[in-house]
């Protein structure tokens, strides 16, 4: 074990995978030579360690980057490609949605696509809506794609290693706001299984599901709620597809209440799927309405005074929990 940042943990996963398996290579805009000289950046130092054969800087061509991943994975390689900012995935979406997600099915199971797409995401740094826009619901809505979203240093490594060695296409979302967060990290190869949520904080009165940065928003809401005598159970979802229904339903059946938190737009966001799933499968265990905490239906603004309106805060989580508790 050693103290590492979230960015180091991603780096560690990439390095571990590349050490283990020559079919693993990385590609993207600036994954070799970056504009940043910063050891917390996920691909820092990998060009020096693995060379230009396996660390491929690409032109600014998201369709070609994603096509590279689809075609190379169909040939048996394990590509790990990077999309620099989540909104730019729109430029890669034909290759991901129509090809990575569909070609195996349409081949009748003859072909497989063991590719990983690392997507840098997040709001809260004043970059505006063309660099900040969390589109996880789009991905989750497309058949044939898996999507995971680590919130801890340990999962940043464990989920990425699982994604790289998974036989199917996996999108791994990285909250850039977490890159400098520190935590204990095992040095060895270890895997966080895809499709397994984690009870981050046990509790009894209300289940709160969050992923990525939103997990910490949910955590900050705990103390004021405890002061009001309310005990929340926080689930770190980790994996949107596959979805760990068992973990969610067990918790909701225990608490009888659910609040979902994410930084994406609330309307048609992933929280809607969680709310609907719980309403269908655990309606009779619910003691109050399912509440969703998310962003308003606007593009991400630039001014910090406006961005604060966009990003859900702990007070929004507190309010949602109180509402479902009818307090």
């Amino acid at each position, binding site marked *: 074990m050693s103290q590492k940042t979230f960015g180091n943990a991603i780096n560690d996963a990439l390095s571990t995978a590349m050490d283990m398996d020559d079919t693993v*290579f990385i590609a993207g805009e600036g994954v070799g030579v970056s504009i940043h000289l910063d050891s917390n950046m996920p691909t820092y130092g990998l060009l020096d360690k693995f060379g230009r*054969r396996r660390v*491929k800087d*690409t*032109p600014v*061509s998201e*369709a*070609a980057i*994603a*096509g*590279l*991943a*689809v*075609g*190379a*994975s*169909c*040939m*048996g*390689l394990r*590509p790990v490609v990077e999309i620099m900012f989540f909104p730019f995935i729109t430029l890669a979406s*034909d*290759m991901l949605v*129509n*090809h990575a997600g569909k*070609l*195996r*099915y*349409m*081949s*009748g*199971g*003859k*072909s*497989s696509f063991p590719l990983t797409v690392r997507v840098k995401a997040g709001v809260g740094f004043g970059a505006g809506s063309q660099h900040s826009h969390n589109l996880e619901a789009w991905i989750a809505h497309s*058949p*044939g794609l*898996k999507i995971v979203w680590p919130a801890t240093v340990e999962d940043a490594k464990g989920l990425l290693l699982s994604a790289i060695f*998974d*036989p*199917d296409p996996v999108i791994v979302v990285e909250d850039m706001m977490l890159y400098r967060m520190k935590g204990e990290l095992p040095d060895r190869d270890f895997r966080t299984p895809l*499709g397994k949520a984690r009870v981050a904080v046990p509790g009894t009165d209300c289940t709160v599901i969050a992923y990525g940065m939103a997990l910490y928003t949910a955590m900050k809401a705990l103390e004021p709620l405890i002061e009001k005598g309310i005990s929340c159970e926080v689930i770190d979802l980790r994996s949107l*597809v*596959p*979805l760990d*229904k068992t973990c969610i339903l067990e918790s909701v059946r225990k608490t009888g209440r659910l609040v979902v938190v994410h930084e994406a737009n609330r309307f048609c966001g992933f929280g809607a799927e969680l709310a609907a799933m719980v309403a269908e499968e655990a309606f009779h265990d619910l003691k109050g309405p399912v509440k969703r905490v998310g962003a308003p239906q606007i593009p991400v603004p630039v001014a910090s005074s406006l961005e604060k309106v966009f990003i859900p805060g702990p007070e929004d989580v507190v309010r949602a929990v109180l509402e479902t508790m009818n307090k």
Partner: protein
Amino acid sequence: MKEKQITPDFQVSLFTRMVLIRKFEEKIVALCRESYQLPGMQILANGQEAVATGVVSALEPEDIIVSNHRSHGHLLARGADLNSLMAEIMAKADGVNCGKAGTLHLSMPEINALMTSTVVGAGPPLAVGAAFAQQYQALNGVTVVFFGDGAAAEGSVHEAMNLSGIWKLPILFVCENNGWAGAQRPEEHSAVRQIHKRAQGYDMPGQSVDGNDVEAVYHLSLELLEYCRSGKGPAFMETLTYRMRGHGEQDHQHYVNPEELEAWALKCPIIRYRRALLNAGILDKAQIQSIEQDAEARVAAAVAFGDAGPYPESDTALTDVFVQAFNA
């Protein structure tokens, strides 16, 4: 290695392949006309047989094909099994892709026809990946990607040509210029009339060829494949041909000048080659008739095979999404 000298036996095999492709697709036309239960849109390459045959005959076994919505000829030239191919077009369980591809999304990795995309212009970025894998693993193969003049207008084709030019990937871009993108002429969808001239912009050789001359296509393919195989990078071939049957079988071709269609019918690659082989004394009329009858018999047998097979069981609709299935 392929011979540069074309032997009479090889000429006969080129002719035989073209005839098989034509007879196969003519059968599909007939099945459509009979209101036969062929699902989806049937998109045929009638008149373009010399491109598929000329290019694919120049490939080595390890070379990869990435195809598009007009793929039957590419696959048949590559040696696809007729029965399971026809069964797939009928969407039967015995089809090459278990009834999940149909006519448009065929993939036959067993003959290195790795992927087909019907998203126009998506083939080239997929080919980038396949060719990268060949380069990365120091395989000797080349990836050939077929696309049309219409697809050449897609941004993804530009990205793929640029990236493969930078990385010197072993890709042969084959642009089948059949004179039409939907109902639009090249002058309406391409700023340059000679699409192969764009190759210059990506630092790769670009040449055009009479796409209805199977030997000319074969020779240019050999030359450009050798270039790609030698590690020099990608190359671009534009084959000038004509789309005889419209975009698909639902196309009314009301926008096509009948005289133009008639003129191209006279340039039919199969009629031309038949005449050439007759004149050269390589085949006589009886032998040609026998080749045609043999192709018809094989196609008829494939239709019978497809007819006899079942449609996929409904529970297979839920399989093959992921390698490791899970409950969604």
